[in-house]
């Protein structure tokens, strides 16, 4: 079962995503048809791919998402609830049983930033979670942040503060924007 010349994970991954040249692909297939060990590794990658895709569809991940992803899920018929508080301002928000995705859109001037962190804070401003070095489009003018819909549907009424912070090479930090989300629970459940 052990392979004496296993295919590198990078090559297998690129094979699955169709990123290899025709001759490289042929070599990989010549090997895979003869090798259970490498086939099983590819099987695990495919399994991961499928389940990760399902996770993405569940709306339960806490992450920054590109607009292309939001376009795609909308086209697929998912219901996306998006809140865009003004820079430095607050917005009242909620989530209903029919919603599939919950997005906070944080508008800011992102030009010139080398690295941006997204800080999720409690209502008193204390840091709850810091997402470091988030992906962003420097010319996009905003960051779309997906809150876990599973969490939001179960959460009590609460206030969350989001901050976008630019981190410079010397480690200095600059606040790009602060946004307050006043979440009101509208779904039945235990009191918060």
């Amino acid at each position, binding site marked *: 079962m052990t392979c004496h010349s296993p295919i590198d*994970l990078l090559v297998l991954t690129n094979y699955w*995503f169709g990123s290899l040249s025709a001759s490289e692909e042929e070599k990989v*297939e010549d090997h895979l048809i003869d090798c259970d060990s490498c086939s099983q590794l590819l*099987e*695990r990658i495919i*399994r991961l791919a499928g*389940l*990760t895709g399902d996770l993405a569809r569940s709306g339960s991940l806490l992450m920054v998402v590109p607009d292309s992803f939001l376009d795609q899920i909308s086209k697929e018929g998912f219901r996306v609830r998006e809140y865009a508080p003004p820079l430095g301002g607050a917005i009242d928000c909620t989530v209903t049983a029919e919603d599939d995705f919950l997005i906070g859109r944080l508008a800011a001037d992102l030009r010139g930033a080398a690295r941006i962190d997204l800080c999720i804070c409690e209502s008193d401003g204390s840091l709850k979670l810091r997402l470091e070095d988030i*992906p962003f489009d420097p010319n996009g003018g905003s960051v779309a942040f997906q809150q876990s819909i599973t969490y939001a549907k179960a959460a009590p009424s609460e206030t969350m503060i989001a901050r976008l912070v630019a981190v410079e090479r010397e480690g200095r930090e600059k606040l790009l924007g602060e946004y307050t989300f006043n979440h009101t629970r509208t779904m039945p459940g235990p009191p918060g």
Partner: protein
Amino acid sequence: MEKNCSDADLARQVAASQDRESEDALLRRFAPRVRLYGRRHLRDESAAEDLVQQVLLITLEALRAGKLREPAKIASFVLGTCRMTVLDFRRNAFRRERLLQELGGHTEIVQLPTSPEYDPTQLAHCVQSLKERDRTVVVMSFYDEHKGADIAATLGISDSNVRIIRHRAIRQLLACMGGSE
């Protein structure tokens, strides 16, 4: 016994004796590999299962009829049959679709082993533990199988950077889900 037997030995046994046990062993061995080929090229689970059935039937028929002159080259024969059959599927996609509707999920010659099971809760934890960029890249890659170039354009990074990040994230996920590469 079966595990110690090479693919070529099994193919020779099938060709020589048409022994049912050897045939089953050979089919069990190649079925998962052919299915992977099908999933990669057809991007459809049920089409991949159809490919397995068709390729293994052709292989068995060739061995029984003594058409495979060099059983040592069984893997090459199976791979070549996979390639031809996928081309054939693409040419006859319409006809295949009609047959599938007519016949539904009919009898299978091979019971395929199931894929390794992963716990979705653990996977969610593992995905959440990735670095921000890595998470976005891997989720975008696996959601609807976005092309590297599309992700690169969306995130303002290079295509090769996407490949490196994707590779790093998958390595981390596999480790997090248990077991080595």
